[in-house]
């Protein structure tokens, strides 16, 4: 028997108060009346004598005292703890795909399930946390053995990585010093590093604090973490990377990288299938443990291609990959006929793969035009806002996501300027500056202040202080306008190697902003950029899609969407598990597809089964010393509450009945 709140016993002071009030009330008042014949009915019958009468009259007092006593016990938290010998465990289970690795006919996951089922004591309670890329509480806290084993039997490891540090952080939230955290993994040595760092963080030296008077206070107790290895080292062949693209129209090329983990082995065979039809195969020499890249060429195919590595080995998950058709995003560019050196623009654009030119500015994704003095889209002005007679950029180029304005000659060069803070876009980290070397470019700018009308850019002049492009304020979110800090009439950039690179960067930048997803084949753990029309124009519409229907993200084989975006779709998807994913416009499985992509494992960490090992824990350490976990017995609480209610009712009843 324990008292959870001993201060509640102060309620016992109410007992003498009740007694005092009772005896005070018991004092008879005397009244003289004219006659008693009207009162004879009220004479108290005392059939069993005075003693019985006293007892009978004391019933309200007895019930009042009992009610006060019960209330005091309730306040004091009287409890007979249930299952006083039971202990709570937090089990952190490796949820990575490497747990699927089979050895001796059993996978690591099955070995973990068997070992835990065999070990788990019946009277104890459990919390099961899956250590995946994101930790997940599968069951608990305080689950019974049956609940624990039921959840364990339904578990299948399918995460592409195991973040033990985050999982143990979660486990420590559930665990107390008297508990044990059991870390079940196929790589106990790797997990041991995490355990060591977690225990070091909770060690007395690190967790003890110093009070104001300089004395060290007691350290905060941390739960003990015990690793349990269920893995087995094995040789493993794996596809660690694969992708497909079209080198030229009508042909399809698949590139795959295969690696041998463990001892050098026999050659393997990489086969490509379209459904059940084999498209081609190639032998892979795995005499070394170095990655081997394989190339397969086919006719252009618009269906998914499945790659399979044979023969089968310990981990089947990394022997297969599915590649969806690569995304073909063609960028359409329009070059203003008024631009000086227009031929140079056209030649550079034609050299960029996946680009085509158009004569219709309204159909262009990229617009390269002349910066006309006084234009509404000039520096410092809002595009399309100053002159109502001239159509705005959004009206003139409705499809364009990038507009570049170039200064034609020196006469209008007064509009050029030095970068000022946020409008600088041409920096070292800019996508437009990738692989771009401007050394040797005659770059005339600030003609009115510079000693020379033109200045050769040298390596000691930082790009960040002399920008090539300024970003102007745009009326719409998905249309960016850049102003070139360049006078076309007096620059040599067209004859410089930087020119085709700059044009390619401009085209690729526009390509990435075309509607749709960035890639169709992803590696596990890789982020996916989303540029869905709904997400791209969030300012104009609060709903996820333009017509108000929600966007849903489906994983192949699931009956419910993994995510639903009713208002705004994200621009980046991360933490996706392996498999085929589909984004649909609508909440049904049959809703139209907005985009689809494939996430393959491609993880050297998961495919490398060499660090796997088996390690039995010290079972004597599993049970905590001394302190045993107890559970509050709510039955006592409810019984006290019911008894209190009964006493109050009886006290009121007897009081009113005149006893």
């Amino acid at each position, binding site marked *: 028997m324990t008292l959870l709140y001993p201060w509640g016993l102060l309620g016992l002071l109410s007992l003498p108060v009740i007694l005092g009030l009772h005896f005070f009330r018991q004092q008879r008042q005397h009244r*003289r*009346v004219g006659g008693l014949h009207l009162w004879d009915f009220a004479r108290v019958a005392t059939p069993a004598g005075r003693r019985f009468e006293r007892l009978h009259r004391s019933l309200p007092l007895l019930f009042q005292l009992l009610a006060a006593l019960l209330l005091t016990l309730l306040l004091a938290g009287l409890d007979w703890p249930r299952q006083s010998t039971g202990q709570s465990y937090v089990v952190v289970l490796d949820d990575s795909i490497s747990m699927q690795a089979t050895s001796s006919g059993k996978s690591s996951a099955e070995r973990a399930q068997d070992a835990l089922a065999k070990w788990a004591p019946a009277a104890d309670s459990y919390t099961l946390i899956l250590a995946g890329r994101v930790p997940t509480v599968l069951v608990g806290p305080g689950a019974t053995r049956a609940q624990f084993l039921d959840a364990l039997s339904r578990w299948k490891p399918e995460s592409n990585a195991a973040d033990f540090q985050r999982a143990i952080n979660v486990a420590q939230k559930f665990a107390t010093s008297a508990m044990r955290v059991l870390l079940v993994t196929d790589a106990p040595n790797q997990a041991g590093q995490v355990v060591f760092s977690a225990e070091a963080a909770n060690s007395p030296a690190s967790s003890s604090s110093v009070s104001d008077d300089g004395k060290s206070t007691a350290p905060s107790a941390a739960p003990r973490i015990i690793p349990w290895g269920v893995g087995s080292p094995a040789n493993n062949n794996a596809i660690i990377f694969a992708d497909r693209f079209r080198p030229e129209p009508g042909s399809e090329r698949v590139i795959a990288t295969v690696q041998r983990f463990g001892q050098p082995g026999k050659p393997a065979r990489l086969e490509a299938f379209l459904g059940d039809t084999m498209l081609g195969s190639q032998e892979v020499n795995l005499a070394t443990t170095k990655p081997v890249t394989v190339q397969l060429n086919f006719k252009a195919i618009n269906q998914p291609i499945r790659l399979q590595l044979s023969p089968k080995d310990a981990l089947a998950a990394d022997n297969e990959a599915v590649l969806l058709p690569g995304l073909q995003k063609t960028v359409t560019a329009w070059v203003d006929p008024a631009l000086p050196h227009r031929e140079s623009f056209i030649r550079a654009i034609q050299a960029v793969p996946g680009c085509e030119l158009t004569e219709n500015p309204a159909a262009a994704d990229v617009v390269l035009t002349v910066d006309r003095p006084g234009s509404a889209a000039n520096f410092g002005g809002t595009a399309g806002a100053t002159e109502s007679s001239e159509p705005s950029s959004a009206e003139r180029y409705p499809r364009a996501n990038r507009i570049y304005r170039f200064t034609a000659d020196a006469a209008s060069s007064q509009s050029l300027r030095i970068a000022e803070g946020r409008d600088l876009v041409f920096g070292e980290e800019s996508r437009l500056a990738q692989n771009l070397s401007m050394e040797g470019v005659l770059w005339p700018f600030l003609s009115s202040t510079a000693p020379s009308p033109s200045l050769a850019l040298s390596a000691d002049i930082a790009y960040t202080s002399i920008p090539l492009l300024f970003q102007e304020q745009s009326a719409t979110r998905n249309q960016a306008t850049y102003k070139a800090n360049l006078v076309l009439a007096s620059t040599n950039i067209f004859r410089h190697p930087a020119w085709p690179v700059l044009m390619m960067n401009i085209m690729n930048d526009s390509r990435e902003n075309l509607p749709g997803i960035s890639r169709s084949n992803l590696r596990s753990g890789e982020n996916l950029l989303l540029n869905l029309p709904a997400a791209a124009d969030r300012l104009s519409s609060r709903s996820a899609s333009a017509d108000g229907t929600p966007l849903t993200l489906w994983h192949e084989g699931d009956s419910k969407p993994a995510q639903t975006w009713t208002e705004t779709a994200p621009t980046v998807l991360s933490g996706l598990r392996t498999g085929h994913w589909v984004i649909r416009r609508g909440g049904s499985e049959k809703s139209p597809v907005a985009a689809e992509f494939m996430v393959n494992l491609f993880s050297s960490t998961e495919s490398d089964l060499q660090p796997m090992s088996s390690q039995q824990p010290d079972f004597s350490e599993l049970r905590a010393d001394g302190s045993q976990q107890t559970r509050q017995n709510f039955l006592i609480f409810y019984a006290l509450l019911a008894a209190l209610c009964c006493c109050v009712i009886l006290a009121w009843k007897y009081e009113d*009945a005149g006893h």
Partner: protein
Amino acid sequence: MGPTHSPAKFLPQITAKACEVNFLASTHIDFPTRAAVESLAQKYLLPLPREMRSPRPGELTGRRTGSSVEYQDRKDFSPGDDLRHVDWRGFARSDRMTVKLYREEIMPRFNIIIDGSASMGVTPQKAVRRLEMAMLFWLMARHLHGNVSTWLANGSAPLRLETPLDIARHPDAETDAPLAAMAASPATRPGGISIVISDLLFPFDPGRLPTLFGQPDQLLVVQVLSAFEANPGEGLQAGAMLRLQNAEAPEHLDVRLNSATVEQYLRRLRALQSDLADALRRRGGAMATIRDVDDLDSACRIMHTAGVLAL
């Protein structure tokens, strides 16, 4: 109560002075509620019955034919009529002998019967209220120039008092049958108006009570109760233990006062009052119950509503 006073203090004064002086002198006694009682006696009237048996000739005009000077009617002469009332002038004019009739003059007889048992003094207020009621009716009867007799009923032969103030000269009797000897007393002569002032908290048969007072022309009963007797639950905490001491006998009763007890007592009290009121109504009488804590105005309004007083 109306005027604030301490009955325990003024009662001895009344008693001492009432012993020395007659009624005329007693009107000069410093009586705390005297002004209020006299004012109410001027305001209200005693309701008289339509017919009164064998009243003495007096100053009050009756409804029947009599010998007063107030002309009432005329009728044809018949043998035996008083020749002094023959209208000779009319006989000379019309040759028809008629007799003038005059309204009678009566002097009503009042018997004020005051309960002299100890129960009327369970609270000082109740004792005062008995005195006030006796004085009120005595004054109203005097205003009617009636023949007023005041009787103190204390279980034995009723004592005739000079004035109601003489109550104080006689100690309250410890009897639970104060009206037992009324039947054979002069107070119950047939006719007249009997006014009974009592708490009626003694065992009696409500149907037979009016017969104790003979055959009065009118019987008016005023029941004076203390606040506790009228409603025991008022002002007391439910469940309180009480020892009820009988004022008229050395006996007591221990009761716990709760809602059920109070309800039962009130039911019995109202049944008693209802039965008695019905019996009185059958005899042309009336009954009113007043409390000692009510002020005099309220008490008079209650009595007027019940028909014990008239305006």
